[in-house]
């Protein structure tokens, strides 16, 4: 395959790239361009429910008319309505706080596994990954069972005498945080564990031999070395959480919706496709920086693995 002079080899190499490349261009890139276009259209009572529709038969005049009809009205509408702004802010807030919570819970877990006896590590690792393989929906559903007013959590709290009247857990932000932390925990633990596991134990030994207290060795050696894993885990959680739909929809309240829910309602309930598309474009703009950072890290990992 290295011999590029081999014509047949070069041709087959091109085919290897071309098939997945074209697939992704058609089913990933072009759809985004369509979203962008529709976000500049306006709603119509028609099939499809937006205007203008590009008509290739109309030729150049049709194309001109098409571009004239595009407008930014949906973006102006989103920017002027407090509903959407608060929705974006709420999503960012929930994503930021839950990423922090995930770090606080996930790091000790990853660290504990990485410090466990070698022969236990694969089993412990498997135990952390296993829930990820069971349905996401099931795991959220399991929490509805626990968090509802007559649910297990309140029964336990009442029995222990911690509370007198059962508090409402469902339809609160607390429930959303619990659901998110629960669902995303493996995504935080795995990258952190991967970096901690690769770490050379002798570095810590060297530090303690030179008189560094253990906590300080942790702070000065372990933590900086685990930073790539921490950043990867944080991005892997933060980005999808911002657009999360299922968890806030099933566990959260109806006071403030996260942006994923707003998009969903705009699309399925209000049938306002152009506004839904504009909401998606703005969401994507918010996430483009973390997505690019994540991509760079992945690419660098790939280069480092060579």
């Amino acid at each position, binding site marked *: 395959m290295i011999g590029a002079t081999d014509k047949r080899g070069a041709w087959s*190499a091109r085919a290897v790239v071309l098939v997945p*490349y074209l697939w992704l261009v058609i089913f990933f*890139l072009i759809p985004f361009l369509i979203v962008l276009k529709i976000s500049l259209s306006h709603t119509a009572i028609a099939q499809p429910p937006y205007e203008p529709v590009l008509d290739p038969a109309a030729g150049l005049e049709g194309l001109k008319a098409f571009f004239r009809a595009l407008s930014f009205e949906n973006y102006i509408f989103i920017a002027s309505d407090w509903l959407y702004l608060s929705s974006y802010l709420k999503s960012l807030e929930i994503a930021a706080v839950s990423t922090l919570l995930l770090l606080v819970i996930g790091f000790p877990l990853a660290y504990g596994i990485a410090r*466990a006896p070698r022969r236990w590590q694969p089993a412990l690792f498997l135990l952390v990954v296993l*829930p990820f*393989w069971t349905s996401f929906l099931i795991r959220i559903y399991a929490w509805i*069972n626990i968090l*509802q007013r007559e649910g297990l959590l309140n*029964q336990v709290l009442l029995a222990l005498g911690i509370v007198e009247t059962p508090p409402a857990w469902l339809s609160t932000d607390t429930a959303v945080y619990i659901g998110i932390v629960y669902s995303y925990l493996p995504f935080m633990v795995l990258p952190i564990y991967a970096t901690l596991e690769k770490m050379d134990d002798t570095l810590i030994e060297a530090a303690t031999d030179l008189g560094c207290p253990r906590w300080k060795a942790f702070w000065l050696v372990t933590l900086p070395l685990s930073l790539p894993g921490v950043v990867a885990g944080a991005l892997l959680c933060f980005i999808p959480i911002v657009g999360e739909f299922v968890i806030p929809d099933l566990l959260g309240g109806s006071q403030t919706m996260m942006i994923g829910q707003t*998009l969903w309602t705009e699309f399925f309930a209000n049938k306002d496709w152009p506004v839904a598309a504009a909401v998606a474009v703005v969401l994507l703009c918010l996430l483009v920086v973390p997505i690019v950072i994540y991509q760079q890290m992945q690419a660098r990992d790939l280069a480092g693995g060579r």
Partner: protein
Amino acid sequence: MRRASWFNVASVALGLAFLYLPIVILVIFSFNASRLVTVWGGWSTRWYVELFQDRAMLEAAWVTLRIAVVSATAATVLGTLAAIALVRLGRFRGRLLFSGMIYAPLVMPEVITGLSLLLLFVAVDVDRGFWTIILAHTTLTMCFVTVVVQSRLLSFDRSLEEAAMNLGCPPLKTFLTVTLPLIAPALVSGWVLAFTLSLDDLVIASFTTGPGATTLPIRIYSEVRLGVKPEINAICTIMIAIVATGIVAASLLSKFHELGRDREAHPVARA
């Protein structure tokens, strides 16, 4: 030296308890005789019996399974090609865009992917349903397959391929007889990952589905929105059992495989 400090033990134990307690509770309550999901009425399998009489639920399960098999297979082929392109072809024109399109779907919020695919299907005016979900799932899961296969391609010994080619084996045959068997475990885990992701997906399937193609997550979701029902506990338990058996079997198998290989090659090496 590794000492298990009480802090480490506690954080692992608490973390695992947090991960497993809800699932265990769900499984236990699926055997609850009482219709009230919060009151324990003794052991019973009545919800399983009712579940197997629920035709709509079984139909949805069958649709989901077929979608998952087809899309996971397509995703494995496409994802493997993409991994080979990324690892083996070095710099080619459009590589940056290509790797961008591979990594972006991994973290892209599902509402965006779902909406954009739906708008594509509407723009080209295809009937939405079974096949559009397959196209959507293939697109999403092939990227996960790529990542899995890629790491395997990076870690294995290329001299084996070079040896084959030096001995006059043509590239395609080298690929089929040397490379493919070596990366086969990654293909299997990639397929399983794609299969599970497809089984699990609610959001993208909701956007890209049409009349007549209700998947299990869509069905469960619409039931759950109406409240907790014991039948749902039962179907969740069955799904958990299937996945757990699969994973444990797979890991035992690969451990067995690895043990054999390690013994041949280097006794202390770890995966």
